[in-house]
């Protein structure tokens, strides 16, 4: 099957993720959507790697996973601490600072 379709899939996933970030309130969910976007990127990388026949893309994918993991660590830490002090994970509640 034509690998280009995987690219379309990747784009689709990326868009879904982005949309999720825009519409979901729960910080965790938002964060998961971001993870989804990262994975969309991974898919794109491996697809291109496959198309170009060089391995860079696949290596980058590994890096991306590591970065994603690190992001999870930091992100969850922050979100959890916020949750504990506010008893809510809604990103909309966190709007003390504005204007």
């Amino acid at each position, binding site marked *: 099957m034509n690998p280009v379709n995987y690219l379309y899939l990747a784009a689709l996933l990326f868009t879904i993720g982005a949309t999720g970030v825009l519409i979901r309130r729960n910080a965790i969910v938002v964060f998961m959507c971001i993870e989804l976007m990262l994975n969309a990127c991974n898919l794109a990388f491996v697809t291109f790697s496959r198309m170009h*026949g060089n391995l860079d893309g696949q290596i980058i994918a590994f*890096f991306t996973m590591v970065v994603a993991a690190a992001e999870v660590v930091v992100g969850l830490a922050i979100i959890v601490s916020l949750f504990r002090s506010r008893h809510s994970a809604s990103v909309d509640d966190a709007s003390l*600072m504005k204007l």
Partner: protein
Amino acid sequence: MSATAVHSLWTTAADPIQKIDAPNIEYGQLSPTLIVIGAAVIGILVEAFVPRRSRYYAQIFVSVVALVAAFAAVVALAAGGYGTTKAGIAAMGAVAVDGPALFLQGTILLAGLLGVFTFAERRLDPVAHGNRVDSFAAQASSVPGSDSEKAAVKAGFTTTEVFPLLLFVIGGMLVFPAANDLLTLFIALEVFSLPLYLLCAVARRKRIMSQEAAVKYFLLGAFASAFTLFGIALLYGYAGSVSYATLAQVVDGTIETVNPALVGTMGNDALLLIGAAMIVMGLLFKVGAVPFHMWTPDVYQGAPTPVTGFMASATKVAAFGALLRLLYVVLPGLRWDWRPVMMGVAVVTMLGGAIVAITQTDIKRLLAYSSIAHAGFILAGVIATTPDGVSSVLFYLAAYSFVTIGAFSVVTLVRDAGGEATHLSKWAGLGRRSPLVAAVFAVFLLAFAGIPLTSGFAGKFAVFKAAAEGGAGALVVVGVISSAIAAFFYIRVIVLMFFSEPRPEGPTVAVPSPLTMTAIAVGVAVTLVLGVAPQYFLDLAGQAGVFVR
């Protein structure tokens, strides 16, 4: 592409992998980064093994030594001609060691050093239970207002982790402007972003706001870096490589051996353009350009002021460095596509930042918006696409970062019962109560406003001149107009400090330790020196104005 072609690709890809020869790393040329990262690791070990009482001093020692050493290394490299004649690519093409890189690394290291000083400041907050305290939470994990927090304060805990975190940030920033392939760029981006998110979250006072700032910064930052990553993917797809050199050749169409498998994608400029745009967007987010600026005010306000100061200066330096390299090394062939777009961004950034700042009432938010406006000015220099443009931007960044750190350090001094008194109304009559502090802050504000004889003017003149020579006269006019608008609110603060009667319940000005004093003093000194006799530094920036390809 046809199935057979794909098959052939597959077969080639499936060849038994020949043995990988070990990469050769130019440790000397990478030494600044290595030193800082290493120090950061040591810092972690310190956290693990050194007893709590002496950690603080140990950490300061490690950080300061590391940063000084790294700076010395940078100077040595520059002196060794790596900035000019011997400029080259290191680490198997991953990192460039050239003029801009070294100049920016030097700037970042100095900013970092001042950052460490402000981080380590322990005289401002009143002594709690016999322990001097800094601007960071006693125990970041404890819930604000909870008993555990009180206990932590009582026990005199302090979050000394901020120092290694800071070192990691600096390490990432050192790589960021030097990154010579997209992967390194991305990694560096994350390396300095993630610790920064954490640093935003650990304020001692107003912790809720601090955490909120961290969340916002984190979510939006991650969102932005996702875009960047996707952009990288697309560029990779376009050129089949993430190395700047190759990309540049492909973009220029000067590549000699075209891999047949790439013909299909290389023809597809959509990949290139969209990818480039997305990467640039990620960088614009970091520099805080409109419309990717909205995190700036909130984060600047919520984060602990020392962090804000460091972030405001160093992040801009690193991000603009990366942006310059990307645009000048990878995408010069695309100049006619991105220049108009960037011009648009620059215009809205300059005007937007200046206009919104007019009605701000919180000093930290005010400075945030002013930093946005300044990002616009710097973009004007970026757009010049001439060596002059590069050097002018470098100069501006150096000048700007010191003014910023100084200004935020002054903000940490003005305090009342609730910690820093950042609401402008509380600054009324500061000039009457403590003329010196007010005068110093006035100097910084005038530098921001670009009044002659301050570094701000020299920098502004440099970028506008470059832009005008680069044929962006319109930008200069807009820049001049927005400078006029911006002048209005800087002056408002000065009026407030000097011409309005002090409030009886007004804030007090804490007398800082030599650490913060150094930071402020250096800020003032650099501001005036770069304002009155900028030639030497202009020369530096001028020599450093050439990227290695």
